């Protein structure tokens, strides 16, 4: 069997087990009060973890790149009480513009010339 199909089969089983665990364990009985409070309180932490890894993680490293500017623009839009679609467009648009600017600087050798100036 090829690597691809072995990988797909193994991950299908592992993933099924992981996703099934919560509903099977806690679906039909009440969890202890302490566990229930922990799980309920964990949502903002989980969301924050997803935001931070999605914005600053790249190949196991902490990086500051165009994504951070995009999320900064989204935060600004949120402070100004913009609707969701505006928040998303601000994030993607800012990231895209900065990436285009960097690509064009690289293409014209600007970054090398700027670096020579500093």
């Amino acid at each position: 069997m090829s690597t691809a199909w072995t990988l797909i089969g193994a991950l299908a089983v592992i993933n099924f087990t992981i996703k099934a665990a919560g509903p099977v364990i806690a679906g039909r009985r009440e969890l202890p009060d302490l566990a229930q409070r922990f799980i309920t309180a964990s949502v903002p932490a989980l969301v924050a973890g997803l935001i931070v890894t999605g914005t600053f993680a790249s190949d196991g490293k902490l990086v500051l790149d165009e994504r951070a500017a995009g999320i900064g623009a989204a935060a600004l839009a949120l402070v100004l009480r913009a609707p969701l679609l505006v928040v998303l467009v601000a994030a993607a648009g800012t990231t895209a513009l900065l990436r285009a600017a960097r690509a064009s600087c690289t293409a014209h050798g600007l970054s090398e010339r700027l670096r020579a100036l500093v």
Partner: protein
Amino acid sequence: MDATLRDGMRAALPLLLPTLLIGVSFGVAARSLGWGVAEPIVMSIVVFSGSAQFASTGVLAAGGGLGAAIGAATLANLRFLPLGLLTAPATRGNAVQRAFEGQLTVDASVILATDEHGNVSRGLFIGATIAQAACWIGGTALGAAVDLGSDGSEIGIDVIFPAFFLYLLFAEAHGGAHPYRVAAGGALIAFVLIPLTPAGIPVVAATLAAVLGMGRRR
């Protein structure tokens, strides 16, 4: 159709184009490993987790072996243990049916469907997942069958999900007492662990910040 199921699909609407495009980029990434058209499509159906799928193909693309690819994908998906406990009350039936309904667990669906008391709306949860699944699998098929020559990074697709989660965090501060204190704690844990641990661990460890918000909301 159940109204709340439709509400779930509507709530997921801003995510559908990004999900489709990320699906396309997964199809392209898998084909670049020398896979056929069927493999990425089947994977998006039976594994059905973008982070796990990208984690495993990323390892293979970097020259890693099968074991490392399986390990990376498993770590990436460990967060579905706490997410699954959260969605458990929204599932129905006996253990087997609940196990299958648990497969519908997707980050954005769970977060969208959870109110500030930690209650999960079944209709919102399932509706949001159905809409995203169609786009994820359809996008994968498109990317695998037709090489579009782009992963969407030129138009900033990769920040849509973090921006959406930021919106949810601000618009509906979820869960327990002191949601912002808990969020800050989770963010700090993730920051510290990103360079120290394999991908997937920072998000799971971030949930430990829940201890900051376990007091009763007054």
